[in-house]
């Protein structure tokens, strides 16, 4: 019997530029094939080419056989019949994959009816069944919701339900978890696994995340510059990579389970934050605007950074990490709590003092494209903080080339514009800009999340070197715990705007004490198939609750895995008493260390 999917000699050109070259893949029934590569490696183009979904400027050559029938060059009618009924797709961004004006349930029912002749009522009940299968609570009620009423994780679940609707032979999942937080990612991967078992479909999983691939894929194909450089079973590829590129890639991935001894910092404190709060009003009404609620974005964050130390602020999206940073950088009095920068309390500073303080604290942003003015040559961009500090021309002319060299860029490139650089180079420009005024504390807002793995490793190395050379202190905000493990000395975990655990990085990662930290750490995929499949995962139910409410007692208790084991009295304590956070440790009434890596 021939394989379910057989791709041979697939070439894809976009306007004459080669995107995919000579790709050969085979996929047996019920098998999971992981397609991994960095951005621009042609992995998505390959997946789309299989379904004939590439845009009009793409030229496809070669052969794609689904169960023996040729898909390349097949008519639109033929392809439409195959899409959905035999091959289903799960996209990266589920919001754009649903029509916003129809109810979720109706859209899934439509998918059911499109490929099977069943009455409307039956299709609808099948949709509810599917939603239940992918773990959406109260599926009958949720089927009547519109796409925008779902959270990102729920939408991705619904997307998988829709993919399952027609019981396809093959599910194409293109970066299905990239836009999601780690705990949600763990849920979705679980659902995907369940869906695969339930339908017996083969899965082609496209991802840049080696950890995700390691956890799910039976076989792996590694792509680079449009070609498959290595193919084999997951254990083969991860344990005994043959291609030099695969080896390089595996070496570059920051791993959460690499032990590293952080250096205990002894210097004087650079930044001390106690009980920081920040709220945003929610307005309703168009004619008469009135305040209808409050978003408690930051609600009790404590931080300590010492000279020469790296503190990582860790949490999921919406947990108030970035708001915390921006509150610090405003250099004005915080809404609640206290912030001390270099021994000076914010809110008591005059103009001149604030200006002097600006020199000592600088920031590197997440997205290097967005944070560099596209219309300014990088020389001017780097000189900007210097100018703001009133440096004269001669100093600027001397410093800019030196800074470019320091971050590993060509000094002569100062009069180029940001779009002429690659992503990693742009982030280097961002770092050079922050360093130009010789700061003592560098705030890094997700500095690596927009970059590819191998570029990440380079920038990480640069940050490490600069810290050593210049004695900088870093305040690093990241959702990527593997990166944190590799650079931070101390880590502080926030949940829903509140610090729940802090401590030295090896301590917290090896023996996390707060149940949230444990869940977070256990959700991070490790690029090692054997370990990844035998880890115990602590799956958190549901989504993070809304920050527009204030909670009595512990705000984590609704999702807390410990709750099931507690007695009634203990639960009462969780419900009414807010666990205090003091210095290092965990803000939990029943904290106990547990190894999860």
């Amino acid at each position, binding site marked *: 019997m021939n394989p379910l999917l057989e791709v041979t000699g697939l070439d894809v050109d976009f306007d004459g530029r080669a995107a995919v070259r000579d790709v050969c893949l085979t996929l047996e029934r019920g098998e999971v094939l992981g397609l991994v590569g960095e951005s621009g490696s042609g992995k998505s183009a390959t997946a789309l080419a299989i379904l004939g979904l590439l845009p009009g400027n793409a030229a496809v050559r070669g052969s794609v056989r689904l169960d023996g029938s040729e898909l390349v060059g097949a008519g639109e009618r033929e392809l439409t019949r195959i899409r959905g009924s035999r091959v289903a797709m799960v996209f990266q961004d589920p919001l754009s994959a649903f029509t916003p004006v129809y109810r979720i349930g109706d859209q899934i029912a439509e998918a059911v009816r499109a490929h099977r002749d069943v009455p409307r009522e039956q299709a609808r009940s099948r949709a509810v069944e599917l939603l239940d299968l992918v773990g959406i609570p109260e599926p009958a009620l949720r089927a009547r919701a519109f796409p925008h009423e779902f959270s990102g994780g729920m939408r991705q679940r619904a997307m998988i339900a829709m993919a399952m609707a027609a019981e396809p032979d093959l599910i194409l999942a293109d970066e299905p978890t990239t836009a999601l937080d780690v705990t949600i990612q763990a849920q979705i991967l679980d659902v995907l696994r369940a869906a695969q078992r339930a339908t017996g479909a083969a899965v082609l999983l496209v991802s840049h995340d080696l950890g995700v691939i390691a956890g799910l894929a039976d076989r792996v194909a590694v792509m680079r510059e449009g070609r498959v450089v290595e193919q084999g079973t997951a254990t083969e590829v991860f344990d005994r990579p043959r291609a030099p590129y695969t080896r390089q890639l595996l070496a570059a991935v920051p791993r959460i389970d690499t032990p590293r001894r952080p250096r205990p910092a002894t210097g004087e404190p650079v930044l001390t934050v106690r009980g920081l709060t920040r709220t945003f009003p929610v307005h309703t009404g168009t004619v008469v605007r009135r305040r209808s609620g409050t978003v408690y974005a930051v609600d009790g964050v404590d931080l300590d950074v010492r000279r020469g130390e790296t503190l990582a602020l860790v949490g999921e999206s919406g947990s108030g990490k970035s708001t915390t940073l921006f509150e610090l950088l405003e250099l004005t009095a915080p809404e609640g709590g206290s912030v001390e920068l270099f021994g000076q309390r914010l809110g008591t500073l005059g103009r001149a003092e604030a200006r002097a303080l600006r020199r000592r604290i600088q920031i590197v*942003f997440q997205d290097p494209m967005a944070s560099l003015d596209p219309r*300014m040559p990088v020389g001017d961009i780097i000189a900007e903080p210097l100018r703001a500090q009133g440096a004269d021309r001669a100093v600027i002319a001397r410093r800019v080339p030196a800074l470019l060299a320091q971050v590993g860029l060509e000094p002569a490139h100062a009069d180029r514009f940001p779009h002429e650089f690659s992503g990693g180079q742009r982030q280097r420009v961002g770092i050079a800009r922050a360093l130009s005024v010789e700061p003592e504390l560098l705030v890094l807002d997700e500095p690596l999340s927009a970059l590819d793995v191998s570029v990440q490793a380079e920038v990480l190395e640069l940050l490490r070197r600069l810290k050593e050379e210049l004695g900088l202190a870093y305040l690093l905000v990241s959702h990527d715990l593997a990166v944190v493990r590799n650079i931070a000395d101390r880590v502080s975990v926030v949940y829903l705007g509140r610090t729940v655990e802090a401590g030295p990085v090896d301590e917290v990662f090896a023996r996390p004490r707060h149940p949230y930290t444990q869940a977070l750490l256990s959700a991070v995929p490790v690029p090692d198939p054997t370990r990844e499949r035998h880890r115990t995962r602590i799956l958190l139910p549901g989504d993070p609750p809304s920050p527009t409410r204030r909670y009595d007692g512990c705000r984590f208790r609704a999702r807390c895995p410990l709750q099931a084991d507690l007695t009634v009295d203990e639960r009462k304590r969780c419900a009414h008493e807010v666990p205090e956070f003091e210095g290092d440790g965990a803000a939990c009434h029943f904290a106990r260390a547990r190894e999860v890596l």
Partner: protein
Amino acid sequence: MTTDTRTPETVAAPSGRSTLVLRRFARNRSALAGAVVLVLLFVLAFAGPYLTPWSYSHVDYGALRSAPSAEHWWGTNRIGQDVFAQTVRGLQKSLVIGLLVAVLATGLASLVGACAGYFGGWTDRLAMFFVDLLLVFPSFLVIAIVSPRLRSAGWIAFVGLLTVFAWMITARVVRSMTLSLKEREFVRAARYMGVGPFRIIWRHVLPNVASFLIIDATIQVGGAVMSETALSYFGFGVQPPDVSLGTLIASGTGAAVTYPWMFFFAAGLLVVFVLAVNLVGDGLRDALDPTAKGAAR
């Protein structure tokens, strides 16, 4: 703290944005041609009167509606005035009015719009209220009432009046563009680096709306010349015996077929003027936009 030894001494100091923009502009052929034509037009307008023995108001009774000849280079009009002398005189007025109104109106629009968008709050509300007020005022009526009192101040006051009623819509667009730019990370970055608000507007906001501003200004040039004509027709603005390109075109339109020289010289110069401004505008836009295909590095 950071003395890097890898920096070779030979690396020239990086040139700033203004130098780069100028260099890119100079490399753009058509833009340069436009600039040269503009300069030539100015030379013609201001040196022209000295080339001809006729003055723009002098009436030669011996040559009514005479075709171009050695004596009257571009012919005469129906009361015997020299068309060349009149055209260069009109060109003087129109060049200055057109360019000044465009530059002033766009400048005012970008200043008010960017400030309203960037500062928000009461600045925004006040500025937009004022803009809306000016938009609902019948501008023609206001000019009609005000201009007789400003007659003594001459054409400069007229430029001011035209400007005041030409910037509001641009300001509204600039405001909304600023609102979205303000949320961009590079503006936030500049703020956290201690750059002042007006510097941010000047260095980050305005260059990023420059494409729109330039297009708007080039359209404004032609518009200003034409609205000056309309106003002059009703007796405001440039009054006889003084002339502008607009009044010349208006009075020559009827004779365009029978005595073409009365119409086509003035009309041709206006077309050349607006074309040249457009070329310069396009060149400037490409020079300011580093991703533009037209301007090579």
